[in-house]
């Protein structure tokens, strides 16, 4: 009986160990990340410097983005790769009129705004304009604890099919935002 208990205990521990992911910090380079069983984690809580609400305002015009951290996200139920990510929502008001709004923060794959860590003060962002359907990417650079710049540009490469619209991109492409 004791042998059976010991065997069961060892087996459970082995199963538990094999199911554990190797944890890498978000600062790890791609070459440091090996295997198919890992968790790229915001170990030092660096995302806290961007999570929250940021706003650019000029009179009754404003562009507001709200960012939320999602932990241990996987891209499929069968995957053993996990990530911490930042997704967001936005609202753009021009002269008091709502031009574009995403009212809910959705994670992968339905996000409209995503931040990817580059350095503690620099994030690569991807944003979908819900008015034109067009996408841009760019940088969100923190220049002080409560101030950041947002610069957007077109995504590189050919563009065939799905997201060609004659409606111009409706969101601001170069603004300085203040953390609320």
């Amino acid at each position: 009986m004791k042998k059976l208990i010991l065997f069961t205990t060892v087996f459970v521990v082995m199963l538990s160990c094999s199911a554990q992911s190797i944890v890498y910090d978000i600062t790890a380079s791609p070459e440091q990340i090996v295997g198919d069983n890992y968790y790229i984690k915001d170990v030092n809580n660096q995302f806290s410097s961007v999570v929250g609400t940021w706003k650019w305002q000029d009179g009754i015009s404003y562009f507001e983005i709200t960012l939320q951290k999602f932990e241990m996200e996987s891209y499929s139920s069968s995957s053993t790769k996990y990530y911490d990510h930042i997704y967001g929502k936005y609202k753009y008001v021009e002269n008091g009129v709502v031009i574009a709004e995403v009212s809910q923060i959705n994670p992968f794959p339905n996000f409209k705004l995503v931040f990817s860590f580059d350095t503690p003060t620099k994030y690569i962002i991807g944003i979908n304009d819900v008015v034109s359907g067009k996408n841009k990417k760019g940088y969100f650079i923190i220049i002080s604890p409560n101030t950041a710049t947002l610069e957007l540009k077109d995504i590189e490469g050919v563009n065939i099919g799905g997201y060609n619209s004659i409606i111009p991109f409706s969101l601001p492409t170069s603004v300085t935002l203040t953390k609320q």
Partner: protein
Amino acid sequence: MPLPNTKVDSFIHNHFNNGNGTLSVFSGSDLYSLYELYINDKIKDLSKFVMVVTTPGNNISSTDDDTLYAITINNGTEFAAFGEKYLTDPNIVDIILYNNKRNYISSNISNELNEERFVRMLQKNNSGMSVYRGDRTNLNSWTKLSIRNNYTLKEVNCN
């Protein structure tokens, strides 16, 4: 750019330097476009289809870092699954696959690193695609690229 009216045998394009550097491998938008061709039934024969990109590298005053790559689809089932998961939205491709710490592919890093990371990204995600590096002086010499278990680049001459 709208989808072509007829099915295509292959697709060749170039990247150019727009003042922000040039991506030396296929971009996320390129892969997105490839999947658009696929799901809209615009590829004549998936097993023979070739997509090619030529780039001037980052040094536009020299041809030394020009690049030439081709991709083929070796497993249609894997490609369909990869596309359904990652290639339905340009932001998913560009941010999740390319501009992410687990696989950063960018015009800001060397051609060699981009090449290795691009091949690894496709291979580790079971994309169903094969990558080939071409001789930039002609289109007759190709090297198949893959990643070994120890994560180094494996090159096999196709000629």
